[in-house]
């Protein structure tokens, strides 16, 4: 069964609008993904650049502080006399506010004998092995599981050189202090994450999400400054910032655009379409009534006038032609006003 014209037009128009809607959604999704990917890539590149500078700055700061600390201790000559070195060192460090950067330190003879030690809060004593000319290393303390940067330098003991060994804990706090919102940092050493800027919870999440530190769409890795060896820790930067454009944000203009299109189509075509169907309908009604009466009455004339003023040119012409045809006397009749015989519809 063939659909009526109105149904066909409504179906096609509906289909067209659905297609427009689909295209709009696809376009919006594509733009959203493109913008978010681009923003993420820029953020990740900025983070990588930022943290590379931060790591270099940290190394410089710690190196300067290590040297200043050694200079201060040497200037006091508290290690020159062999007696009560430990007490003198502790008194000096406590009185002078100690070092916030290096909460633990040891003074050793070159043969490794510890002659003085100081701990700001917790006693730290990891087993450190350094070759004679080695200045620093990384070590995991078995007691607290923390990774320590160990800096060693010569210090004058009065008659001979010794070593000042400084311990810098690479803990959650250190990473928390250098991170910024939208990034999570974790420090990896020998294949394991040991500290996170989000504390223990962050460490658990990172360990579950990464088997090893790697570059990805949302992560970047940086090696700690200095010559890279198997002991060099790696900093994993994870982007935590939310997307630049959210689905709800892009959905609003899509819906708005679709409804503007819908209303425009309705305003532009619906009125024309209704008037055209009304014009066609008037023709049909006029023809039906004329067929039933066999003559033009007021109603037929009204329908024909309606059809003659409608928007479709061909229908107007058809209405004129039909009126002329209806006004003509039927064949075989010689008097005006006679009518056609009624049709049996």
């Amino acid at each position, binding site marked *: 069964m063939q659909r009526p014209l109105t149904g066909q037009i409504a179906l096609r128009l509906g289909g067209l609008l659905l297609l427009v809607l689909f295209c709009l959604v696809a376009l919006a999704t594509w733009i959203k993904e493109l913008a978010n990917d681009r923003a993420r890539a820029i953020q990740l590149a900025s983070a990588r650049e930022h943290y590379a500078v931060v790591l270099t700055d940290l190394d410089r700061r710690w190196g300067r502080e290590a040297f200043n600390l050694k200079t201060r201790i040497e200037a006091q000559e508290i290690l020159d006399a062999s007696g009560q070195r430990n*007490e003198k060192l*502790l*008194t000096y460090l*406590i*009185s002078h*506010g100690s070092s916030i950067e290096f909460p633990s330190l040891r003074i050793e003879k070159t043969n490794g004998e510890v002659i003085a030690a100081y*701990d*700001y*809060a*917790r006693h730290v004593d990891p087993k450190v092995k350094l070759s004679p000319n080695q200045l620093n290393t990384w070590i995991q303390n078995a007691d*607290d599981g923390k990774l320590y940067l160990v800096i060693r330098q010569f210090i004058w003991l009065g008659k001979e050189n010794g070593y000042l060994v400084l311990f810098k804990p690479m*803990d*959650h*706090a250190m*990473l*928390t*202090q250098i991170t910024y919102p939208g990034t999570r940092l974790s420090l990896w050493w020998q294949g394991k994450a040991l500290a*996170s*800027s*989000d*504390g*223990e919870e*962050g460490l658990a999440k990172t360990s579950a999400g990464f088997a090893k530190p790697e570059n990805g769409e949302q992560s970047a890795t940086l090696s700690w400054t200095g010559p890279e060896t198997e002991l060099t820790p790696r900093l994993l930067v994870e982007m935590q910032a939310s997307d630049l454009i959210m689905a709800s944000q892009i959905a609003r203009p899509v819906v708005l655009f679709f409804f503007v299109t819908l209303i425009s189509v309705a305003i532009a075509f619906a009125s024309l379409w209704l008037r055209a169907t009304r014009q066609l309908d008037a023709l049909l009604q006029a023809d039906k009534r004329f067929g039933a009466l066999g003559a033009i009455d007021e109603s037929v004339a009204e329908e024909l006038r309606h059809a003659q003023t409608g928007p479709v040119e061909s229908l107007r012409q058809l209405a004129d032609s039909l009126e002329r045809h209806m006004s003509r006397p039927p064949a075989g009749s010689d008097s005006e006003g006679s009518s056609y015989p009624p049709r049996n519809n």
Partner: protein
Amino acid sequence: MRFFWVRAFVLAQLLLISGLLHAQPLRISIAIPGPGAASYFPAELISKIGADKAEGAEVKVIFAPGGPSAIDEMLHNNTDFAIVGLPAAMSVHLRDKRVVALAAINDLPLYALLVRQGLKGEIKSIADLKGRTIGLHSNSTVSKSTSQQVLELLFRRGGVPPGSYHMVGIGRRWESESLMLKAGSVDAVIGDEPHASHLQANGIAFPLVHLGDPETMRQFSGSGFLRGALIGRSDRIEVDSSKAETMLRIIKRTLAWIATHSAEEFADALGIANPDERQKLVAVLKKFPRQYSKDGSFSNKQLRETEIFFIDSQAGNPAAEHFRIDAMIIDRWAGRRD
């Protein structure tokens, strides 16, 4: 068919039990000033009496030189909670609103102002300490530790205004406190128990003021402040309060244990091997039996007293003068009493 359901039930029970057995304990970390400070012994006791395991958790304690440093450990994600003097936490709260108090731990401030033995006869009152060097646990120009607040209040009441004496942060390790006094690098220290009793017993220092003394408490209004409180972070609690709830249950369990055990059992549980140290600790615990809270609940009276102490010790600080303690108390788990 009947056997099938019985077997299925038994299997389900076994799976449930094995799941529980293999469940990872909830890891909780606390920063406390120490080690060896009587005020914070409840934290050290937790794992020793198994209060954490009973709640399916594993509590790790790390030590800091003072209250603000312990709070720093918490704010910088090294720990989940801190136990510090409430006045120290209030001082940090003035700048960081995330710092909140969750439970009362230690009801009695046992601070003592101790003068080095060499000054016996020369220093008879606080006024005699003008121009001298005083050691305290930690100090900062930004956040004041409880010991610093106690010191400033005692000195002001004693007629020694701020700026007329020197302060040195000496930490709270026994070695550093005793060494600084013995070396004469400090003339007095503001310390707490049991180090105060140890310093006195070893002839290193003599007490000038002891806040545990009822007469002193009467003289210094506000000195009955809440000494040790469990401190948390409001931003973490808003996201997930389960850790705080578990910690509160552990604290209540520990405090209940302390309330029902003798001083000797307390010292044994802490595992103090040195007989002399054990004896001194037992003496301190017996001398100040109402040192620890019984259930962790906040006392309205004590909170008011803490507020008075804080405002008084921070005279001249407008932010402190307008501070109201209720802004940082979360009592939904610990509860409140008069």
